């Protein structure tokens, strides 16, 4: 971790590459970008572009092959160990215990985050209420619909009031009502200062949600900037147009 002062940055990614064991092709090649405190950065690209790998490296789930990630707390360079308690992660999978109730899941992950009983209980009540799940808190997750599980998945990622939130396809497979509720909550949190790094295949949703866009293809950044700038630059009408324009129409694995 490099020691440097970058007041506006919360995260700096420097020349990251990732080669999985036994793989012949790099999943990420020389990826560099900054994340500004309080912004909503969208990472998009076709399947296999390297989005999930990138988010996994940023969260410390996977090690990078080369390059590095610098984190900043209170304008000071910080180690990953220091920044970890301030990270929230919403994985693409339902990383939940289906046999437990919604409350039991939230309590468990809250306790693991080091939250004390009173604070934890009020946070659980708040999250369940704003996500419209307060009436099913004592039901086992195995009885929940996909949309409800997705909301609980998000709630667990938010239980520690993260300063930086990584969202890997947070609205995949949910109905429009759940999607609206999730996006509304994320916008509300962002307004309170939470930085968000987000991937999605819902490009229409992403257009509205993200402040800045990073397009990945074959492990490389192929475009970076605000959506308006990118659309103008590439003479595209939408994010979908832009992606097709930059990555082609060929089907991906």
């Amino acid at each position, binding site marked *: 971790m490099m020691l440097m002062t970058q007041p506006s940055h919360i995260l700096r990614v420097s020349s990251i590459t990732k080669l999985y064991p036994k793989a012949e092709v790099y999943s990420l090649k020389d990826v560099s970008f900054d994340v500004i405190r309080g912004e909503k950065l969208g990472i998009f690209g076709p399947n296999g572009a390297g989005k999930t790998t990138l988010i996994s490296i940023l*969260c*410390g*789930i*996977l*090690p990078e092959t080369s390059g590095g990630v610098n984190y900043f707390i209170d304008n000071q360079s910080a180690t990953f*160990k220091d920044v*970890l*308690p301030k*990270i929230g*992660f919403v*994985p*693409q*999978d*339902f*990383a*939940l*215990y*289906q*046999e*437990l109730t919604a409350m*039991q899941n939230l*309590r*468990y*992950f809250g*306790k*693991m*985050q*080091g939250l*004390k009983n009173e604070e934890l209980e009020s946070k659980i009540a708040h999250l369940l209420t704003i996500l419209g799940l307060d009436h099913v808190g004592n039901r086992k997750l195995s009885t929940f619909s996909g949309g409800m599980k997705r909301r609980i998945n998000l709630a*667990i990622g938010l239980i520690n009031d993260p300063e930086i939130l990584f969202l890997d396809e947070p609205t995949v497979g949910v109905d429009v009502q759940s999607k609206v509720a999730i996006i509304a909550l994320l916008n509300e949190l962002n307004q309170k200062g939470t930085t968000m790094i987000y991937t999605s295949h819902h490009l229409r949703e992403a257009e509205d949600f993200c402040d800045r866009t990073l397009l990945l293809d074959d492990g490389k950044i192929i475009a970076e900037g605000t959506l308006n700038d990118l659309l103008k630059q590439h003479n595209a009408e939408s994010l979908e147009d832009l992606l097709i324009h930059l990555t082609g129409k060929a089907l991906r694995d």
Partner: protein
Amino acid sequence: MERFKASVYKEVLLLLHDKVGLLLMYMMPLLLVFVITIVQDSAFRLVNENRLDILIVNNDKGDLGDTLISSMKHAGSFRIDVRKGVNEKQLSKLTLEGGKLATLYIPEDFSTTMSVNSKRISKAMLTEFGVETEVEKRGAQKQESNGAVKFLFDPVLQESYQVTIKNNLQIMISGIESKQMIHQLYKDMGYDQIPPRILQELGKNRTKIVAEPAMNGESAMIPNSTQHNVPAWSIFAMFFMVISLGGNLVKERVSGSFVRLQTIPGAFLHAMFAKITVYSFVALTQLMIMCTIGVFVLPLIGLPQLNLPTHMFPFILISVLSAMAAISYAAMVGTYARTQEQANGFGAVSIIIFAAIGGIWVPSFVMPDYMLMISKISPLHWCLEGFYTLFLKNGSWDQLMGPVYYLISFTVFCQAMALWKLRRQHYI
């Protein structure tokens, strides 16, 4: 500590939800202890308390056939059904259709043969002593006869039982032969009958064989089916937690829960320690329940009572080491398996194989030499060695050291393999 407590609570909830796992871990070994102990105890009684149904066809024209039957009745070894005048050719049919496990055929010339044999021996003895016998005066009888007793058995009767019955019969026939020979000896020396004092001496019990188990020090333990089966099936139950713990680990990994825990500082190790704690408790309660059943319940249904080891510290040590070996094996399987089906299938089959080669199902001493060598790779073998040393031999620390070293090594190996895999997957 709060994290650890939360993880333990979560593990307990998951465990309580796993009804199949609980049944396998608690009910299956209980059923096995009941069934196997009852079966083994019945077999033990069949051989040693001699209550075998036997048909005797007595065609002997003399008295010795009746003497043999009388000896068998006196021994109390068999439930005897006597028939006369049955043709030798009908014996097989009679045995198979008569519902008896064995048939003894006493031929017509049984007494004659015994008499001829005893005369021959008597003559040889007296000739050796240089005594002119009544036989020589009368001229030796040249009659030869075979008079073999035939023992037919139902093919379902296991070899060990056949041998035991045959040996018992041989001893009884030998007794009659001896008596007959002495009688003949006296007769050939000119006595009408054996003097009563000699008869009295012959009737006295001969040298007895007193069987007792080799023990270290004084112990009240008596080797029996309960003493063997309770520790054996407790170990099997402990290792069968691979289904629950191994499956649980795979499920958490596949669902992404482990990945989420990776993003929470220290959470993963707390979760792993909590698993070890909860499943250690499970393993030790399995053993406690099995021992309680052995001490209090088995005697109620007529089975031998379990005698607990007199030294509790080594007992606790072997119990804890066995539990740790079982948990570590389950953790290793759960870490390497890619799916829950893989963990359950491989876990169950491997434990059954370990149990089979480790002496849980059949005693190690009946195995050929190469199998004895192979059995040493089974952790269940070493757990069993440890428990047998305590439950059957009232063993010393020296005798326990082998199992202790092996179980510690096995636990360290499995934990190291699991940690290596988890590290490769970047969970720790």
